[in-house]
């Protein structure tokens, strides 16, 4: 028993050393991680640290360019753009996280089951994934939100559904190569049920790859959700959300008030960039062979 803990510890220490090595070789990942921490802080504490009420209008101070008082300027109702961008982080972050967790629960589990059991399970889930793939994804998301109703929950669901095929494919491939692995056969011989092997043995083994995928999908999920709210779906004004904030300022771009759209757009871009870099970095740590 003590041997096992020792080897686990060295395994963990080795993993940590590898992570440190990757971080040192690729400072960009460290940078992305720093950004990620900032985003999480803004999401958690945003409403308490912003200087102004994101919904309070002050028509006397409308359409002011960025200054020391209003860092990101003010919009047509005199609302502070900086406060609105920071407060919006929570909603965008939550939409992305819930949709990614949801697609993992749907697509990841369906894919693992398809790869492990094969046969009809495989055929049904693969056919379902193919059908979703037959649509341009953003267009399908629009159709889903239009059909289910114009709510934030449906944006989350639609974003999860359009990512479903990707998760099914990855999880299916990973489960498929492990279905007759030594430890699976050993578990089967010791009398474990198939469901138990699937959830207790296969799933934990493919989790690292799924986590990398989830991180990579976060960026896409945020873009997708912001795109939907940009065209007027889901999130409704005056709720601050990056896509809506960009849409609200869009009309002012032609008359030179660039800051209303620019800063929320920049926040969106930085968040997506951060998740993409982080996903690439995580992949380098978890799956060094796929490094490009």
């Amino acid at each position, binding site marked *: 028993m003590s041997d096992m803990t020792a080897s686990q510890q060295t395994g963990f220490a080795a993993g940590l050393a590898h992570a440190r090595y990757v971080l040192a070789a690729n400072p960009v990942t460290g940078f992305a991680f720093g950004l990620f921490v900032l985003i999480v802080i803004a999401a958690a504490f945003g409403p308490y640290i912003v200087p102004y009420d994101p919904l309070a209008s002050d028509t006397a101070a409308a359409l002011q360019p960025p200054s020391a008082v209003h860092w990101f300027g003010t919009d047509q109702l005199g609302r502070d753009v900086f406060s609105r961008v920071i407060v919006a982080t929570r909603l965008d972050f939550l939409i992305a996280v819930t949709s990614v967790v949801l697609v993992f629960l749907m697509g990841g589990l369906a894919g693992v089951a398809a790869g492990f059991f094969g046969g009809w399970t495989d055929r049904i889930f693969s*056919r379902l994934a*193919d*059908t*979703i793939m*037959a*649509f*341009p*994804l*953003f*267009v*399908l998301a*629009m*159709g*889903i939100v*239009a*059909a*289910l*109703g114009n709510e934030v929950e449906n944006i989350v669901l639609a974003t999860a559904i359009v990512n479903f095929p990707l998760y099914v494919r990855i999880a299916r491939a990973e489960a498929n190569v492990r279905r007759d692995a030594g430890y699976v056969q050993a578990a089967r011989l010791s009398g474990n049920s198939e469901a138990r092997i699937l959830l207790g043995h296969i799933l934990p083994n493919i989790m690292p790859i799924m986590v990398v995928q989830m991180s990579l999908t976060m*960026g896409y999920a945020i*873009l997708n959700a*912001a*795109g939907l709210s*940009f*065209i*007027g*779906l889901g999130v409704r004004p005056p709720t601050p959300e990056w*896509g809506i904030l*960009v*849409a609200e*300022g*869009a009309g002012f*771009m*032609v*008359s*030179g008030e*660039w800051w209303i*759209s*620019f800063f929320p*757009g920049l926040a*969106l*871009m930085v968040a*997506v*960039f951060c998740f*993409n*870099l982080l996903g*690439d970095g995580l992949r380098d740590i978890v799956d060094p062979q796929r490094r*490009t």
Partner: protein
Amino acid sequence: MLMMVLKRLATTIPSLIGVVIVTFLLTRALPGDPAAYFAGAAATPQAVEEVRKQLGLDQPLPLQFVRYVGDLAQGDLGTSLTTGQRVSADIAARLPASAELTLLGLLFSLSIAVPLGVFAALKPGSLIDHACRVIATAGVSLPVFFTGLILVYVFYYLLGWAPAPLGRLDIFFSAPPTVTGFYLIDSLLAGDGEVFWAALKQLVLPVLTLGIFSIAPIARITRASMLAVLSSEFVRTARASGLAPSTVVITYALRNALLPVVTTLGMVFSFLLGANVLVEKVFAWPGIGSYAVEALIASDFAPVQGFVLTMAVLYVALNLMIDILYRVIDPRVRIEA
């Protein structure tokens, strides 16, 4: 060759069936009672019942599906409440605007991304290689509507080079007589140089926006596949035989490296068709994307369903074309098939 095309055509049938089933389910998942909705707010219960019968909504779901497929087979996508026109006619009228934009966007990004990827692969670690990697990572992080707005601000407001982002043609010009629906081609056919220039000017910014968005995936895959091909044995042999470097790169390497690029085009089209909606919204482009967005905001569902179905069918058709193109380029696939 014909057999191959027919065989490939047959494989699209399950996709099309899936697409039709999904769009049908989306129509029936509408919140509330569609009959009450279509009858209007002031309708009496009898009128709602009448509409329900008329729409066939009192029948069981499988029968409704048969009716839906029957309507589709006749090209009937319903009627738009906002324009009062048949959805199929509306979409047909607006499709060329979207197609012109998307195709030019793709053309632009191919003309930038392929050379960029090739040069990056030729000199790994060089400045252009790093530029390629930065563009590929930054490009996928750019919200397409944000790029569009920035371009409008810089080129319309600050520099004054581009016309106002308000549709396909400045209001001072009238549209050329419709032959193809593509203003660039139609104006040339009509011999009207002024309209051609005006249409081209309106096109530049939206095309740039769409193009920048799709440069990233194409450049990335070109670089990767070019790197793989350049290190292969036939390229080494060609080099050793003393062929000119340009012959090796263009005739030998590039032609082989383009195969994965053609495959990626399917994914690029999926992105482009979606991004099209956002770009059309930014530039007030009168295509099918903005048609669907306007309908969505007015809670007018028939156009949205028609739009989703049209896009899906287009996308399936594009993938089919890409696949056939792939087989034309690569004889090995043809033999295996």
